[in-house]
């Protein structure tokens, strides 16, 4: 990894790590689709009775319409926005909690570490999605949950993986000689965490963030597909729920199926590429010595 070469160096790096570049570009395009495209397409179209129902793509409705008259173009745009927003909030909270817990437990150890590690181990065995179902189905009016509430519920499980991953990294890194050297240079615990460990763990933090956002998106999609979550507001999961509810298959409304599926697939492929690229960044296998 070479530093201090500016943008050109970055481009050079992308050339050697195309997965990272591909993931970034794809994610950027999705973000643009969810934000900029929304400036030109009003949200009103994403609700029932806004358009002529059951229209294939073309002319007035480039993405077609569903069987209750939602225009699928705004539905997909605002749905992507909603889904990504939920994922990012849940991922950010998960990474935040995971970073604090991971560094504290990994570096300082002690009873707190034992307790946190036990809960992490237990929660790793209990599938997070089942936990989400239990929690989300138990809140009042699960069928019209706000974005924030959905994201908060998701973040109840999204901290587990980052905590585990970061703790493991900190554990292996705190034994390194440069940490001892930092202590000998008069640095205290917090200084060592922030100045010595954090910079080296940046790629791992980025991997954890990508993983947590990915998990948030996946969780929200799963819940919405089962009918938990706001079914009135447009989201990608909600679209899946309705297309099943109205048996889009049997009617042969291919556009209603293909469009959300494509966007969802692109989101996950972007995250996959990004995590492959970040992994390559964190553990370059090409480092060779003669």
């Amino acid at each position, binding site marked *: 990894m070479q530093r201090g070469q500016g943008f050109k160096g970055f481009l050079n790096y992308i050339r050697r790590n195309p997965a990272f570049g591909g993931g970034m570009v794809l994610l950027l395009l999705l973000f643009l689709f969810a934000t900029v495209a929304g400036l030109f397409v009003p949200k009103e179209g994403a609700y029932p009775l806004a358009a002529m129902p059951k229209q294939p793509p073309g002319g007035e409705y480039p993405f077609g319409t569903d069987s209750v008259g939602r225009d699928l173009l705004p539905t997909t745009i605002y749905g992507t926005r909603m889904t990504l927003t939920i994922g990012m909030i849940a991922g950010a909270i998960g990474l935040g909690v995971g970073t604090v817990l991971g560094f504290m437990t990994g570096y300082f150890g002690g009873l707190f570490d034992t307790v946190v590690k036990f809960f992490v181990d237990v929660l790793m065995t209990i599938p997070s999605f089942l936990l989400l179902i239990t929690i989300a189905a138990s809140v009042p009016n699960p069928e019209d949950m706000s974005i924030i509430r959905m994201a908060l519920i998701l973040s109840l499980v999204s901290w587990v993986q980052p905590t585990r991953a970061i703790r493991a990294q900190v554990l292996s890194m705190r034994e*390194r*000689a440069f940490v*001892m050297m*930092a202590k*000998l240079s*008069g640095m205290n615990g917090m200084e060592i965490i922030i100045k010595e460990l954090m*910079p080296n763990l940046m790629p791992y933090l980025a991997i954890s963030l990508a993983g947590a956002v990915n998990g948030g998106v996946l969780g929200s999609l799963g819940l919405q597909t089962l009918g938990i979550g706001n079914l009135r507001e447009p989201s990608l999961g909600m679209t899946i729920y309705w297309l099943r509810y109205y048996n889009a298959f049997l009617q042969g409304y291919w556009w209603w199926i293909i469009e959300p599926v494509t966007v969802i697939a692109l989101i996950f492929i972007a995250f996959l590429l990004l995590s492959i690229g970040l992994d390559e960044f964190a553990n370059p296998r090409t480092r060779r010595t003669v």
Partner: protein
Amino acid sequence: MTTPLLELKHVTKIFGTKKDQTVALDDMTLALNETFPKIITVAGESGSGKSTTGMLLLGFYGPTMGEVLFRGRPLYELKGADLFQFRRDVQAVFQDPFAVYNPFYLVDNLLSIPIKNFKLASSKSEARELMEEALERVGLRPAETLGRYPHQLSGGQRQRIAVARALLLKPKLLITDEPVSMVDASLRSTILKALRGLNKEFGTPIFYITHDLTTAYHISDYIIILYRGSVMEAGNVDTIIKDPQHPYTKLLVSSIPWPDPDLVWGGAEDMIQKSQVAFKAITGCKFAPRCPYRMDICDTKPPDLYLLERDRAAACYLSMDNAVLPREELTSLFAEA
């Protein structure tokens, strides 16, 4: 008697869980004085507890039993300014010349951070001067070293910067753990010379940990031979290397591969046993299972240290005709005549 700078008092360090224990260091008492500017080597094979001793002295491990004292106060009690003072006074050079560098920063950090934290310079230019001076003393050109990342320098260069750091800080005690074992032969001398220089010019005592008796012989004044956490023989390095008394020391010394075609391995063949006995609970001398001179008494209880000369003692029943040196007075061997 003044309080020693750093002291191990009946320190035992055990690693592992209840079922699978390794005694890394067994009831060690040792005092290191800032007023006694000598180089003391701790030598032994892997598992002898030599590195553990270093880690205990630096406060990176806590003792299982016993106490590590800094100016008379237990290390674990030190907080704030006292802990800071301990860090200021006791410094180290480690084995791996790559691992001590944070790969994220320039090598300059190894020198500039202690200068900043310990307030060794009043200005940036003064700090720079200090760094350059220290680098030159270990034979490095500052222009070719500063401003680089660790991976851009060779192992020898990196280790010399680590030694430059010790020179710059002028600690009250320097602990070096195998400082030359990962460095090419042609550079070892340069590094050892710099350490010796620090010791002679600034009177800094050095605690030199190594498995390599050739460098130990060359650099140090005194030596402690450890075997499985216990002292086997200790005292003047010249007499011990040239005329070892403890059977274990004999074995070690006879196995040194001297880079001298006139000094080829010979003798002590009888001491090298083909298959080693599995180590069970040993009640007596730890070396007894491998010792060709083993006697019945060896299995009864660990031997005391017997004073062979004023500055030399061995923990072996073969020497039991001599006066006993209580283990806690090990340090008395390392004193001016």
